[in-house]
């Protein structure tokens, strides 16, 4: 707790430095912290990953579950994305049902994956009108030091890339420990999140910087130059020019990160 209060007290210093285009940890405005990705952290998951972005750490796992198709899309499977801020990861997180922050995070990660057509939902059809795969992608925070949007997006993407599709018996029950193949991905969307602090736009904010952030903007970009999702958050604003600059940088940064996947 003491640590977090100290960090909040840094807000003034962060803003003062930012006015000179400097950051409290000496990084450039467009510099991410060190990224590390560890695969297959859970054997029971169909795919999983642990991502460290500086001190921020999150895990994501995929579970494939046979489910009923939606009546309006009888030949399509679906995805379901969840995010939980574990109390073990920060003195500021409490247990309980997902709050607005967790809901927003999960839905923005969901939109990037869904709208980019990263997964072809028709590939997830088992038998039309009867059974389809639902890919449950659940993300948990392990250590919270800012920028959960990008960390979770990287973790979700990494977990999907590892994911295998379980084998089914005739009654559509999963045959434990057997797989019919890998989950096929068509694109690799990644979120890039920008924070506005004292009029400057920075990437990959740490916890202390997040406390000083006025406005946040996330873009999901794909390797084939599409944008699949936007999300502006917090009480500040962006000009049209700032948004265009963020978009340009998002393509560049996501490309660098994609190499690590």
């Amino acid at each position, binding site marked *: 707790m003491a640590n977090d209060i100290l960090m909040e007290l840094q807000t003034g210093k962060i803003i003062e430095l930012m006015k000179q285009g400097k950051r409290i940890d000496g990084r450039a405005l467009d510099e991410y912290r060190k990224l590390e990705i560890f695969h297959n952290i859970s054997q029971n998951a169909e795919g999983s990953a642990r991502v460290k972005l500086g001190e921020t750490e999150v895990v994501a796992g995929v579970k494939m579950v046979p489910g009923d198709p939606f009546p309006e899309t009888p030949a399509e499977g679906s995805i379901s994305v969840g995010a939980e801020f574990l109390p073990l990861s920060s003195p500021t997180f409490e247990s309980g049902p*997902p709050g*607005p*922050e967790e*809901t*927003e995070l*999960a*839905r923005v990660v969901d*939109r990037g994956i*869904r*709208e*980019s*057509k990263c997964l072809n939902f028709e590939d997830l059809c088992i038998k039309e009108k009867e059974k389809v795969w639902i890919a449950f992608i659940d993300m948990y925070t392990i250590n919270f030091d800012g920028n959960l949007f990008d960390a979770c997006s990287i973790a979700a993407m990494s977990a999907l890339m590892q994911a295998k599709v379980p084998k089914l018996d005739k009654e559509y029950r999963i045959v434990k420990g057997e797989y019919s193949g890998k989950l096929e991905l068509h694109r690799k969307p990644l979120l890039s999140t920008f924070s506005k602090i004292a009029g400057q736009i920075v990437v990959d904010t740490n916890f202390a910087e997040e406390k000083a952030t006025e406005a946040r*903007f996330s873009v999901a970009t*794909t390797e084939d*130059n*599409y*944008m*699949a*999702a*936007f*999300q*502006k*958050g*917090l*009480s*500040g*604003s*962006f*000009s*049209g020019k700032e*948004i*265009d600059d963020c*978009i*340009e940088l998002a393509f560049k940064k996501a490309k660098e990160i994609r190499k690590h996947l």
Partner: protein
Amino acid sequence: MEKEIQYVKNGKRLDGRGLEDLRKLKIEAGVISKADGSCYLEWGQNKVFASVYGPREALPKHIQNPYKALVDYQYRMATFSVPDRKNPKPGRREIEIGKVSGEALEKAIFLERFPNTTIDVYVEILDSNAGTRVAALTAASVALADAGIPMRDMVSAVGVGKAGGEIILDLNKDEEDAPDAVDIPIAILPRTEEVVLLQMDGLLTKEEWKKAFKLGVKGCKQVFEMQKEALRKKYLEAEKETAETENIEMMGD
């Protein structure tokens, strides 16, 4: 093979609008007498009530901010407002919309004048056909102004996006269901064109975005004119009523 729908034909859309036309928009301020401020809005088929209570003491006390007012924005859809009955429990979509819409309003309000308080904004969607979150935010902004809450500017919102390969303003449900549909809710402070709400889903190129943004700002400004008009109308009516009351009183003398 299904017949392919032509979303734009000779510059006209499925419902007869041009590419840059809004659906019919009707805004009425001050419609709920118990509220501090309120608004009823119809935008195409969308129908929304918004009301504002506050600034009032934020409770429980531990949520209070000694430096500024909180904004609690609750976006809800009536169970009958969608084709298949909606579960009355607020879903993840409603929670997310409430969060980003409240944040969008925060930029417009002089929050620092009302420490330890909350400004509660409630919107209820009664009927829907794409674009309810921007309809709701537009109504909420009018309700805030109607409540006399000091603001830097209005918040004006509109949906913009893509259907059938064209960038269009104010998508309806048919257009939102197009195979290539892109939906971009956007809200600005119309005086400065600062973007306070921006979301997008679909597949969009940078060039398409630039075009869409321009059209969105233009749309927001049209909405802004109607918001002002709604507020003006309410005060003109109030003035008229006062004048009439005074006349009656004078006659009584």
